């Protein structure tokens, strides 16, 4: 960019000012200029914006394709319409609408939320189809395909003419917007973003994957019901077919085109889907807009070509889609007949070319033009404190077995770790170390045997239950919350304490300078340290580190040894899986050795190192043992 403006404002404040200005303008519109049709469109836009904010909770924040929102919207609308027919007062009828969407939504959530990706999309799609069948076939209640008519009620004896009803919808939108932002930017929102990246880690760190998914889905369903309620009052006539697949596609277009994970995006999307049918009826306006879209789509690939590179698929595909839309705008005999096709082309261009939607693109440009004042980094407090450890057993795994098919991954292993002890777990690759940690931390359910953590027996196969008993773990294959910042990753794991405590944990692992960096931008070594900080922030009694030094550089390993030493001093019991023998030797009080799923040795690092069975496991048969022994001593790490 050639120039930019420096603003003393923080981005958050600037956004708040923009939002207030927007609402003042929207509220003033009917007073400046009268027009029933335009007012109807504005009302519809407000209703859609509420609906899309709900859809954004699942499609955006949860990252799952939810195809039930249109049906939930319909159920809400029918609920309110039937309540109004029964002469229930308006505020109560709105609540009925919310409930009519929320209750079936919750019933759907129970099976759907255990699913991911295509299975989630499918279960929502079948729910949606079932709902429309239900509305169509329950003729005695809903009047079936003939439709249901209602008379617009008054609100506390105030007659709701179109202007007043518009203001009511605008107020609802304002409150929804504010509440969505509050909810989704809180720890709750962080948790949803975290579980999108790694549901295993959110469970292992006690954040609770299912709980947060269910809440996000419930919030989305409630907003669908609320929007449906307003829609019923606005139109006064409902038909089941209006809430089918076509509406769903339009809603998805709105969220994706507007921009996901952003209330502004939902608003922009609502504006687009409200205006689009009107655009299609005016041919000149439509063709000129499509031409503009074509030019916008063609700019990035041309820039790439000018720098003598080949444009990527995500640059060329939108051009093809927009060109097809332009061809339709120019040559089709009736553009409105091609409505679905044109929606599809726009949606395709948006999904491929604008993954963050129009608001995402606008934000990027604004951030280049305007420099906002950065959010200040908080002062670090807390961190790892030294404490005395008590005596007794911290972790007791007794005779646990686990086999996968014919492979006995863990075979009758008993492990006893004392409170405050740092216990090493070593063994060749494939000896069952990670499986053992997975069994203790509750990722897998043991075939037999039991685990006890600080005297508590967690539910077998439940990460959350093992966490509640006082354990926390890191992962051999990193499980970062890629969408969150380093600071956010800690915040979401903390049970208590605020932002400065979170900084304290980052300080403890030496990442305080990178607090505002996104995990997706951090280096491998930093992410390993961040995982440890994440686990520490949950204040565990037992910390399980699965190959923390794997792939680390030498200076990082030294940092790691210092860190684990300080964790040890804090009285936290540690189970450490590691291949680096020098790390084990420095840190561990005792070491267990596994081979072929069985425990083959237990003792101090020095004892274990001399154990012939261990040498055999690592280096093979007896003949080479003496030679191997000297080699192992000579080995630096």
């Amino acid at each position, binding site marked *: 960019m050639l120039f930019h403006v420096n603003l003393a404002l923080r981005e958050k404040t600037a956004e708040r000012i923009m939002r207030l200005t927007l609402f003042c303008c929207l509220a003033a519109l009917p007073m400046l200029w009268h027009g029933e049709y335009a007012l109807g469109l504005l009302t519809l836009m407000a209703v859609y914006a509420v609906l899309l904010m709900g859809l954004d909770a699942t499609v955006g924040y949860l*990252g*799952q*394709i939810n195809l039930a929102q249109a049906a939930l919207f319909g159920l809400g609308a029918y609920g309110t319409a039937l309540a109004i027919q029964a002469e229930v007062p308006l505020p109560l009828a709105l609540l009925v609408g919310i409930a009519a969407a929320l209750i079936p939504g919750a019933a*759907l959530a*129970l*099976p*759907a939320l*255990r*699913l991911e*990706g*295509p*299975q989630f*999309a*499918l*279960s929502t*799609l*079948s*729910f949606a*189809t*079932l709902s429309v*069948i239900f509305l*169509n*076939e329950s003729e005695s209640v809903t009047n079936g395909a003939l439709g249901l008519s209602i008379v617009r009620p008054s609100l506390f004896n105030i007659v709701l003419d179109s202007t007043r009803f518009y203001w009511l919808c605008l107020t609802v939108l304002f409150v929804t917007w504010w509440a969505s932002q509050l909810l989704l930017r809180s720890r709750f929102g962080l948790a949803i973003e975290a579980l999108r990246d790694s549901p*295993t880690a959110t469970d292992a760190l006690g954040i609770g994957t299912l709980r947060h998914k269910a809440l996000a889905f419930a919030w989305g369903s409630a907003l669908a019901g609320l929007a449906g309620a307003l829609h019923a009052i606005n139109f006064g006539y409902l038909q089941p077919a209006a809430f089918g*697949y076509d509406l769903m*596609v339009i809603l*998805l277009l709105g969220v*994706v085109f507007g921009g996901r994970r952003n209330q502004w995006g939902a608003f922009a999307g609502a504006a687009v889907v409200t205006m689009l049918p009107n655009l299609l009826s005016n041919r000149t306006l439509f063709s000129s807009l499509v031409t503009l879209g074509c030019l916008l789509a063609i700019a990035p690939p041309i820039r790439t070509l000018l720098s003598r590179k080949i444009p990527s*698929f*995500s640059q060329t*595909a939108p051009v093809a889609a927009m060109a097809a839309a332009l061809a339709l705008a120019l040559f*089709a005999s009736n553009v409105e*007949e*091609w*409505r*679905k*096709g*044109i*929606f*599809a*082309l726009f*949606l*395709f261009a948006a*999904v*491929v070319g604008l*993954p963050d939607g129009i608001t995402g693109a606008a934000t990027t440009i604004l951030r280049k033009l305007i420099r906002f004042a950065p959010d200040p980094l908080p002062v670090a407090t807390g961190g790892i404190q030294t404490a005395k450890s008590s005596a007794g057993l911290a972790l007791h795994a007794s005779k646990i077995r686990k086999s*996968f098919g014919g492979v006995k991954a863990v075979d009758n292993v008993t492990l006893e770790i004392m409170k405050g002890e740092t216990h090493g777990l070593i063994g060749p690759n494939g000896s069952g170390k*990670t499986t053992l940690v*997975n069994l203790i931390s509750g*990722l*897998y359910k043991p075939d037999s045997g039991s685990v006890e953590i600080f005297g508590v027996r967690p539910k077998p196969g439940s990460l959350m239950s093992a966490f509640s008993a006082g354990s926390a773990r890191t*992962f*051999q*294959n990193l*499980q970062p919350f890629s969408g969150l910042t380093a600071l956010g990753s800690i915040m979401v794991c903390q049970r208590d304490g605020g932002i400065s405590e979170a900084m304290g944990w980052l300080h403890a692992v030496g990442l305080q300078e990178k607090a505002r960096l996104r995990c997706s931008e951090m280096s491998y070594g930093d992410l390993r340290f961040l995982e440890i900080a994440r686990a520490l922030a949950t204040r565990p009694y037992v910390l399980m580190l*699965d190959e923390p030094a794997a792939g680390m550089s030498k200076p990082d390993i030294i940092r790691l040894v210092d860190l684990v030493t300080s964790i040890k001093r804090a009285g936290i019991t540690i189970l450490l899986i590691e291949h680096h023998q020098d790390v084990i030797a420095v840190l561990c009080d005792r070491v267990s050795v596994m081979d072929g799923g069985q425990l083959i040795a237990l003792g101090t690092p020095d004892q274990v190192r001399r154990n012939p069975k261990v040498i055999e496991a690592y280096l093979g048969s007896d003949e080479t043992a003496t030679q191997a022994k000297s080699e192992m001593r000579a080995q630096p790490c």
Partner: protein
Amino acid sequence: MNADFLALAQMAVGGGLMGMAYALMAYGFQLTYTAGKSVNFGQGELVMLGAFIGLSLTGIGLPYWAAVPGAMVAGAALGWFVERAAVRLALQQRNEGWILLTIIVGLFGVSAAENIWGRDDKPFPVPWPEGALEFFGISVTWPELVIAAGALGMMALVELAKRYTMLGIAVQAVSADPDSAELCGIRSKSAISLSWAVSGAAAAFAGTIIAPVTTVGPTMAAALTLKAFSVAVVAGLDSGFGLVLAGIALGSAENLSGFLLGSGWREAPGLILLILALALRPQGIFGKKIIRKV
């Protein structure tokens, strides 16, 4: 045998034969799911387009036996196009965008069909004899028999090709691990494209054998996709011939519920079955449970 029972049996058999076509579509899901962990949410649209293309080919004077392969070639091209345009990029980025994109491409297909062939349902002429065969008092029409034979034959053919040709084995290698397959000199992307093309051809073939029974129209697509999904999910997205059993069961169930509860409820059992299967056993009755690795 009393008349009521016979009527029910007639319904069940007719539905079961139709269910074979759902099994064939579901088999198309399996092909792409095992190869690239993705499925076409617009599979029903491919079936519809295949049927329409077949209809147009017979319309220009081609005999049925030439129109069917023609439709299959077009279906293969469409399947390949869906993979290239809607699936490849999203899978590379490891996100769920492909679900949305396949829905979008399907939607465009519906719109194109509406404008090219019109919104009305059309009959699909076939050279089979008019009458029906009768087994134990249950009559079966020739087009229904063709559905069963065609679907089973097609599945068997592809399955044999998968097991006994080098190309098929290469595709299986990609299913197991695309990166390792690349290291062995197999082009993973081409293998995935191939499985999408075969899936598209199977869908188009399904269209040409269903259409003589149901007629062909743009609205047939959406319901078919969901039915095929029900079958695929109940049987398991990565397991072989459980599909046929699930297909027959679903076809019979929907005919019976349409008969007993009213035609509006025809689709309900499939949908309820789908939700229940997803809730209770997402890996399918015949599928294997996936182990999370960390």
